[in-house]
């Protein structure tokens, strides 16, 4: 599936996520992943949105997002030119006899054991989406019984930053008050 990864800087205000999500549903754009969090500037949140490119004209997504009043900046991150990561937690029900083998597989993918019970293990892995898919495929035969995966986050490689060309943000609430 061809996808596009967008980094979207938005004002950290109530309702902004609803505005962005609402735009996607109203315009029938297909989101395959969405992750939101704070940035180095507390007035700004950063969303990483992965869009299904076959279904959705990406220029339309970008220009429509850019029109939202609370959206400060939209940047498309191209594959290869960006680091992309997802975090996954996997609970595996495991026969104690196979535990060693499982841990070996986990080791190959740099997955950590974060919880263990007599019958189960929880693994945590952070990697590119492709490698995580591969890890999950390898774990299938052991019996994955629960899985949770974050949305993708991404950052461009190299010395350039998303705010290099400047970003205007509203002043601190304290500075605004009379």
């Amino acid at each position: 599936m061809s996808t596009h990864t967008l980094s979207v800087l938005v004002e950290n205000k109530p309702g902004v996520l609803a505005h962005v999500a609402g735009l996607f549903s109203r315009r029938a754009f297909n989101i395959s992943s969405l992750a939101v969090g704070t940035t180095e500037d507390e007035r700004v949140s950063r969303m990483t949105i992965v869009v299904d490119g076959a279904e959705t004209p990406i220029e339309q997504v970008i220009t429509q997002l850019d029109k939202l009043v609370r959206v400060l900046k939209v940047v498309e991150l191209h594959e290869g030119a960006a680091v992309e990561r997802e975090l996954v937690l996997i609970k595996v029900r495991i026969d104690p006899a196979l535990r060693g083998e499982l841990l070996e597989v986990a080791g190959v993918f740099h997955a950590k054991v974060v919880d263990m019970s007599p019958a189960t293990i929880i693994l945590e892995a952070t990697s590119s989406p492709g490698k995580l898919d591969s890890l999950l495929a390898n774990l299938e035969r052991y019996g994955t019984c629960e899985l949770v995966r974050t949305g993708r986050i991404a950052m461009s490689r190299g010395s350039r930053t998303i705010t290099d060309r400047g970003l205007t943000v509203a002043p601190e609430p304290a500075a605004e008050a009379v």
Partner: protein
Amino acid sequence: MQLTGAQALVRSLEQQGVDVVFGLPGGAILPAYDPIRSSSLRHVLVRHEQGAGHAAEGYAWATGRTGVCIATSGPGATNLVTALADAYMDSVPMVAITGQVPSAMIGSDAFQEADITGITLPITKHNELVTDPERIPGAIAEAFHIASTGRQGPVLVDVPKDILQATMTWGEWPPPLILPGYRVPAEPDLAQVRAAAALLQRSRRPVLYVGGGVIKADAHAELLRLAEMARTPVTTTLMARGAFPDTHPLALGMPGMHGCYTAVAALQEADLVVALGARFDDRVTGRLADFAPRAKVVHADIDPAEIGKNRIPDVPIVGDIRATMAALAESLSAAIAADGPPDTAAWLAATDDWKRRFPLRYTQESDGPLKPQHVVERLSALTGGDAVVVAGVGQHQMHAAQHFSFTKPRSWINSGGLGTMGFAVPAAMGAQVGRPGELVVAIDGDGCFQMTAQELATCAIEHLPIKVLIFNNGFLGMVRQWQELFYEERYSEVELGTAIPDYVKLAEAYGCLGLRCERADDVDAVLDKALATSDVPTVVDFRVHDREGVFPMVPAGRPNDEITLGPEFSAEEQREATRRELRSEAQPSKSREVLAR
């Protein structure tokens, strides 16, 4: 200075230069209605909040200023939803202010609570729930700025009751606009403008496809200059009627589903389409992949998201449309000085020939049934085009758009994008408030009229002498026409009947003058009487022919080349009209539909 939130709200509106607001009070907005009493604002008390919304729209269409409506929380706010959606689709500058339940009760399913910012999120340009009384002046100033700049649109400001009652410190006006994510495109890119001018200079079959953006930017003078300099015919969409005088030799009339044959055919045959403040709406393009298949496209618009949304242009220009057209004329002027004027003589001869052979045609027999087109033409003639014409949605709207001869911008108001039945009466009311002393005529259908007729009471009480011409055919006429054409005349739930209500009595009950006209010979006398009545609103019940359709017509989703001229034309004429006489080498059409395959 210490003020209540409510006082700050009203003072902000005054400072913003608002002279009139349309509204209806209720519980949550009550605190704001106290300072309104002693303010400089004229408050027009409507009978239904939808009327307030459409009145604000009509006011904005007619004046170019931002219309304002006020409602209370819950049902008051949800009654504004249709008008907000309408304003959003037609890019009408409007600010809606709604009361909200007290902050502490939000989310508790309190009495008359509705999440109106959530509900209106996809149908407003922006909205805000105010959570701090200090924020009120900033929220109002930003709302007006956002509503009236760039691609205009509706903005909603939702204010909880406790915020209206709380005390705040009034600072200086205007407050700083804190909108770091809001950018308004300004000057067009000159290289693109030069590319567009070069195309205009060397095209042989160019068309200016003019949309509502030209009227909103007050760019009609620039349009006239550009069209004459480029010797290029002009088609004005439903949103742009009046942007270019219909009496001008270069005018082709309206394009689209019910457009003039010449406008539709000219776009299909064009080698260059210059879209100015237009958005390639499906009612204009017909089946997108077959629209203007031989044309290169220049698309100039203030909204970057419109560029390439439906049709990928060869030359995109983002910027203020008035500045764009002025720059385009300058650039074209230089191109003409260097390479001579565009050679469009053969093209203009062809379009003139189409106008003669395939005009809008209907037959009014003097003793036959009254034709709606006849009423529109008589209104146009008797007013000399000097009127603000407002329409609802349906057959009457199309007949009005087709047959009234528009010569001035802001003389045509209708619900274009959303297609809101019931728009006309309240919008005419708003237009009359904005243009007192001028002739405001609503052309309405009997179906539409009954959706918002209660605003006649408001008009009568507020001394707004609008004229409402009801084209009463006893049917939901446009739906009936589609059932006739596409459902083999199986009419389903479209007959309203002409007798109930008695529109003359209804008018009189509302304190209006009520008239009725059933014969073609009486039209002038009845219109004269209606137009001369300026003390009260007038309602005329025109009993029009119930079988009359709107033509020409391109069936929905079909290519514009399949235009049907209608029953007034012979089979031979229909064949002639759809024969492609200027067939030239087709270029691949670059529409979204094609790209998606």
